């Protein structure tokens, strides 16, 4: 079983055989494949943001040393096969129900670090109820939300996150907001809930943004380890195949169109606001409500 990196970076065992001989004895590795990733080629299209975020999650698991107590919940969508890419325990949830499954796992084994990884169809369409309620219940889980404004796996249909006038398989003349309404901004939506400790929206279109995204994901995991509360990171992502663009052009389109609509930034952070947990922040917010201020008899 591969050990997580601690200090010296080493190749995972399966790569040692394949490319280890290409590294000289006097060379040190600066960046290598995280050990929690398996020796499986992902099913993601070339240039897909999923791959980058999968790696960031893997790096966080390695660096925090939690592979042995991590349970990941995979969604339905392009990342359904995520259970094949990670060496930790993984569950495939029914479409949209990852937060519900994560709730079950976390409540039975609170010592585990439980994360749900979902796309926009999974989290913001069929899974809206599970998402909102796990958040408002304050489940102490980590949710990674990949928002690429489209239903990828099924061939590029319009999603609740698709932009106005965006051309998709089910909006071939462009999304007509007068007929089908507006995209939903999940980060903003969830930030209003007391059960939520941390929400940040990030992206992966540049070196700086990728590093910021990693920090956010790490914080979302650390919050769980510290018992702070529900944490969600929304990643604005590309779908080069269904947007009909090269990976590079897709990131350009993301910069021009998605970032103005889905602004990057922190939408809630109770720790930054000076609270230890979401519960503390909620208590403060309800300071004028007598019943909410009642202390529980132990």
């Amino acid at each position, binding site marked *: 079983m591969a050990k997580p990196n601690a200090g010296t970076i080493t190749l995972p065992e399966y790569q040692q055989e394949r490319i280890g001989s290409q590294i000289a004895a006097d060379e040190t590795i600066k960046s290598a494949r995280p050990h929690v990733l398996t020796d*499986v080629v992902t099913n993601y299209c070339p240039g897909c943001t999923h791959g980058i975020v999968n790696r960031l999650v893997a790096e966080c698991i390695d660096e925090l040393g939690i592979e042995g107590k991590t349970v990941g919940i995979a969604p339905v969508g392009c990342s359904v096969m995520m259970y094949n890419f990670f060496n930790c325990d993984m569950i495939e949830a029914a479409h949209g129900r990852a937060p519900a499954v994560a709730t079950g796992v976390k409540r039975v084994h609170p010592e585990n670090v439980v994360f749900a990884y979902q796309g926009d169809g999974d989290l913001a369409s069929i899974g809206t109820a599970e998402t909102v309620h796990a958040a408002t219940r304050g489940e102490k889980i980590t949710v990674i939300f990949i928002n690429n404004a489209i239903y990828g796996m099924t061939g590029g249909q319009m999603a609740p996150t698709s932009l106005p006038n965006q051309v998709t398989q089910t909006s071939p003349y462009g999304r007509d907001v007068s007929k089908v309404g507006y995209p939903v901004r999940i980060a903003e939506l969830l930030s209003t809930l007391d059960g939520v400790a941390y929400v940040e929206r990030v992206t992966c279109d540049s070196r700086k943004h990728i590093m910021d995204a990693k920090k956010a994901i790490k914080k979302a995991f650390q919050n769980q380890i510290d018992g702070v509360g529900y944490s969600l990171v929304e990643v604005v992502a590309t779908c080069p195949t269904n947007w009909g663009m090269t990976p590079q052009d897709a990131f350009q389109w993301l910069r021009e169109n998605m970032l103005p609509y889905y602004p990057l930034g922190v939408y809630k952070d109770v720790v930054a606001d000076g609270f230890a947990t979401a519960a503390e922040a909620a208590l403060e917010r309800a300071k004028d409500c007598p019943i909410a201020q009642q202390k529980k008899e132990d």
Partner: protein
Amino acid sequence: MPVFAPSTVQEMADLIYDAFDIADEYRTPTMILADGMIGQMMEPVLLPPERDLSSLPAKPWATSGSKMERKHNVINSLYLSPNELENTNYERFERYKQIIEKHQRQELMMCDDAEIVVVAFGAASRIARTAVRDARAKGIKAGLLRPITLWPYPTKAIDELCENGARAFLSVELNMGQMVQDVRLAVNGRATVDFYGRTGGVLPTPEEVLEAIETVAAGDPVVQSSEVGAVGSILPHPKHRKSTYERGE
């Protein structure tokens, strides 16, 4: 609830219109039961001509606004009085009886003198069709009953087939036996009922279905008609090769 089982893309289109009309006439939900294979198939389709909406039956019960011209309508499902609720249930089942009487639908192929009737719907029926033709070429008096409505089940067709000398029914399905009980109930002991099923998205070849027909023709079926439900086909489960998508590959 009426359930329609298309076996071609054209049928998928046609049955939507039929299902709508039944839903509209009887005020009941209807279902189109396609499967993954037919749903993702491409075949040429001729769409039916457009119809004028005024050709649809009038709906005096609808909540479209009384316009102060009639008593107000209420659409609900809550009946607090048990007697009222029981009466409503009986009314519903009278309605269902009408649908069962008038709207059973099926296709029969080579059934006039069939001794062994293969019963199959949807994608399975396409494979069974070839197998039945191959069986006939080998001298076996096989026929195909293809239910188009799965509810109401084509029990009248099965009655006729039993009366005309069918001695064995073989339900061929792409599942572990979801329809075989319907066949058994309809046959009601007048003939043997056997099952050949494959699952997981594995499609049997016409040759494999023919082998099942030949097994029935030899009069030695493994699953007896007295058993309810069918787990285990009449042919031994074939050994498949392992999935190519395995961890570490």
